[in-house]
């Protein structure tokens, strides 16, 4: 079995309403050093071993887990337990 972690974020230039709100809230709390906040999604997948595993995980991201029109994703494979 392989484990994958997927990080989904908005593409550059796409306005991120929750991120912008968190950014303002952090500024209100006095964290003036914060220059930008982006909020995305985190997905954990456990996948049975098989051929083309990573290709198929990418396919899952393109089809369902992310919307390529507005989102980018990064896949991280980790042999350790979560």
């Amino acid at each position, binding site marked *: 079995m392989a484990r994958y972690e997927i990080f989904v974020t*908005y593409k550059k230039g*796409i*306005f*991120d*309403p*929750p991120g912008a*709100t968190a950014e303002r809230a952090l500024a209100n709390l006095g964290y003036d050093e914060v220059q930008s906040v982006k909020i995305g999604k985190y997905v954990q997948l456990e996948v049975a071993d098989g051929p083309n595993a990573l290709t198929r995980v990418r396919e899952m991201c393109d089809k*369902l*887990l992310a*919307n390529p*029109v*507005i989102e980018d994703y990064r896949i991280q494979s980790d042999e350790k337990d979560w």
Partner: protein
Amino acid sequence: MRFGVVIFPGSNCEQDVVHATRYLGYECEYVWHADTDISGFDAIVLPGGFSYGDYIRTGAVARFSPVMAEVMRFAEAGGPVLGVCNGFQILCEAHMLPGAMLRNRGLKFICREVPLRVEKSVCQWVDLPTGTVVRIPINHNEGNYVCSPDTLADMEAKGQVVLRYCEPDGTRAPGGSAPNGSLDDIAGICNERGNVFGLMPHPERMVDPVANGTDGQPFFTSIVKRLADVAG
């Protein structure tokens, strides 16, 4: 004239569509999301609601419902498809319409009547004169439409922008008139052919005069007239 309204798990505006279309004298029946035969219908409506709990993204799971493959075939053959609210989100996720939805700019669920301006478009679901202002309610959390600048220019050139949020007098505020932050005040768009139409406002809620207005009626009567004309 027979409308079919698809029910996905989590749809909640299907009864409004049935009431509106029957009120106007048309036939309307429910279509279950697992159905794979929609051959008896002249037009298909994807209603509002929270299909599949809006998990992952609004419309992201519903687009893979068995019925959607049929709806896509129906649309490709020129069949009229209307997506209202969650239905619009599903059409975007299915790439039957360009662009995507983000959460409303103010992170608030917005439920209120808004003025909308009819733009010059190829949409078969709207035969109102360009510039007409209609008042129809919106009721959503993810109606902040977005697409690339190229897509927007392309849609403008091809007459695919159908409705824009506006001020009561039909003008657009310099800072934007969309209560949800929608790109270029876009409230509704159609495909190149004009048979697939998605909008965030709910025209079905402004059909029966008991609802305090009838501005939604033209959206249903237009497509019926159009189909009658085509049938000659």
